[in-house]
């Protein structure tokens, strides 16, 4: 029997040389006259082990990693195609504790299937959710999403079912489903991983959304920094059309759903939903004043669902396994699971999907293994550039929307950026303001002007110019931006700044001028 070997085509794995490893394996196999099937999967998300090579054996998939092209001849010599022992052996992938303790629902197929194959997708529970949805009334589909407790995974955590219901309740006419794939937060990569590793899950989720609310057109708004995801999505969409999961007669139901990918052009603010809609219309990505809500007046003035990749990618599981199944995971008002991303200065970085309720400490030390540099972790920033810095004294907080809000932090898109004790928090606060100044859409004054003034005030503090007075001014400025900005960019930039001031005040002492 032909052996199947998996080498990821995930862009992070490629950034560590997975492409060269795949080539070396093919070359070595043909030189030895061995027939094998090479599948380019997504990443399993254990990035410290990438490039992670897996071989299918009678007892399951066996892993080796991190593999370099130079290791390939010795892997063949060790008979890795039959699971042979090698210094890079990791044993059965599923038995590794890092994976075994995870609860992968949204990421159930990522790293497992061939992302380019509809057949592989279907063989692994794919399109079960859509099949189910097509047998239900639109109201019942929306109710299932509502009952599941699913909240927007992009960061705002708004109940997805309520958004859908609002769109469903609008009079019949052109409606849209849009997916916000403008994953610009530093420390986040779960959208990218899903789009590269299991793009059909997103395609299916959007199709279900379309069927539910009566929308016939979907758009995925993808950031330009993700060229691999762009290729993977377009490939998946073409394959779905060919297999009639998209188009004028979705799964023989007589219902239409069309889908295309639109590329952004490097504007962080387009991750805000109204700004994204402007950009999808081909305009400057300036914030729209709400109301009207996009669900009532969205893309091209029509009722529009705007959901994040993780939200839509979770919908097929909810429809397939039922709202109750999904709701049974989690804690409090945070139901289900969250794909959490461990990033920055972390020894074992990657994707950990767990039910809400796991603590930050478990993630950082049990999964993450502490910092990459081996120094003590001083702080983590959760939820991207607009998220608060959390000090080590609060690492027992649970990953839960309300628990994080209670300590003045936010969960956002579930990205955790780790910093060791060499971090300069005044510099990080300055960076938050600087980033806001670079990315502000310019529509409202607190964000456009406030961010630039913020940089200047921090500079004055650090240069010893009336430090006390300027710290007060900075606090005032944060309050103004928080209260007066039109959207989250200006309105949340104060969070990292205020948290740095609160927990790391000593870092704001004046420095000697050079």
């Amino acid at each position: 029997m032909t052996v199947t070997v998996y080498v990821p085509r995930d862009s992070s794995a490629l950034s560590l040389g997975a492409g060269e490893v795949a080539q070396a394996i093919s070359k070595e196999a043909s030189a030895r006259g061995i027939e094998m099937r090479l599948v380019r999967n997504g990443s399993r998300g254990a990035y410290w082990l990438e490039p992670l090579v897996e071989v299918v054996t009678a007892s399951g998939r066996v892993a080796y990693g991190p593999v370099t092209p130079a290791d390939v001849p010795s892997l063949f010599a060790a008979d890795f195609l039959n699971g042979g022992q090698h210094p890079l052996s990791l044993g059965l992938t599923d038995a590794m504790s890092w994976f075994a303790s995870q609860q992968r629902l949204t990421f159930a197929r990522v790293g497992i299937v061939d992302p380019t194959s509809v057949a592989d997708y279907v063989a692994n529970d794919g399109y079960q959710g859509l099949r189910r949805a097509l047998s239900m009334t639109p109201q019942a589909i929306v109710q299932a999403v509502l009952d599941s407790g699913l909240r927007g995974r992009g960061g705002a955590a708004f109940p997805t079912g309520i958004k859908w219901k609002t769109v469903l309740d609008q009079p019949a006419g052109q409606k849209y489903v849009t997916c916000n794939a403008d994953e610009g937060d530093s420390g986040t990569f779960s959208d990218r991983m899903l789009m590269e590793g299991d793009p059909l899950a997103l395609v299916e989720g959007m199709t279900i959304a379309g069927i539910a609310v009566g929308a016939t057109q979907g758009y995925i708004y993808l950031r330009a920094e993700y060229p691999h995801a762009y290729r993977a999505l377009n490939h998946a969409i073409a394959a779905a059309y060919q297999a009639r999961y998209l188009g004028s007669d979705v799964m023989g139901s007589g219902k239409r759903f069309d889908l295309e990918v639109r590329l952004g052009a490097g504007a962080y603010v387009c991750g805000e939903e109204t700004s994204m809609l402007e950009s999808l219309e081909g305009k400057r990505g300036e914030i729209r004043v709400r109301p009207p809500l996009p669900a009532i007046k969205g893309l091209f003035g029509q009722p529009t669902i705007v959901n994040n990749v993780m939200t839509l990618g979770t919908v097929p599981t909810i429809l397939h396994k039922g709202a109750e199944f999904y709701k049974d995971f989690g804690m409090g008002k945070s139901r289900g699971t969250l794909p959490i991303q461990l990033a920055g200065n972390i020894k074992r970085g990657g994707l950990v999907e767990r039910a809400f309720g796991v603590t930050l400490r478990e993630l950082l030390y049990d999964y993450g293994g502490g910092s990459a540099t081996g120094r003590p972790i001083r702080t983590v920033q959760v939820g991207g550039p607009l998220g608060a810095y959390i000090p080590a004294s609060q690492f027992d907080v649970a990953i839960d929307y309300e628990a994080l809000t209670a300590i003045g932090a936010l969960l956002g898109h579930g990205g955790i950026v780790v910093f060791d004790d060499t971090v300069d928090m005044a510099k990080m606060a300055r960076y938050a303001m600087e980033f806001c100044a670079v990315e502000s859409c310019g529509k409202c004054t607190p964000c456009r002007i406030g961010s630039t003034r913020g940089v200047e005030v921090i500079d004055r503090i650090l240069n010893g110019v009336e430090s006390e007075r300027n710290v007060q001014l900075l606090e005032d400025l944060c309050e103004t931006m928080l209260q007066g900005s039109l959207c989250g960019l200006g309105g949340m930039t104060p969070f990292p700044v205020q948290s740095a001031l609160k927990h790391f005040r000593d870092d704001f002492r004046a420095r000697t001028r050079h």
Partner: protein
Amino acid sequence: MMQTLPPTDTDTVRRIVADLKGRPGPLIEILHAIQAALGYVPEGAVPVVAEGLNLSRAEVHGVVTFYHYFRRSPPGKHIVSLCQAEACQSMGAEGLTSHAKHHLGVDFHETTSDGQFSLEPVYCLGNCACSPAAMVNGRLYGRLTPERFDALIAERGLKK
């Protein structure tokens, strides 16, 4: 005085506009296609696009300049984007950036005098578990060190 495009480029822009103008909200799609064909969005393309879409030049100019991705001058042969965001900072992006600037002899948004390399900042490449990250001509690199940076520049022929 607005610069005018060479006739072949004008034809290219006209063809792109004609191909894409029927799509909903086509302007950004058109600008992407122009940049893919010409390497940047020349100022002279603005009136051609504006005329084709029945927009004012100001509207088109406004969109071109809003988005960081659209270049308004020709890039070097290789575009090197270095991530400046928090995750990469936590793993030494700042040091790598000063090394890169020094090694190439340019600042951000500049191109080496031999026209080989343009250096750009980027805010997150989604490679945050393998920081610091960079992208060279659409190819992603992770866990970069100054040595690895020099090697990938040398592969592409920096004359030192």
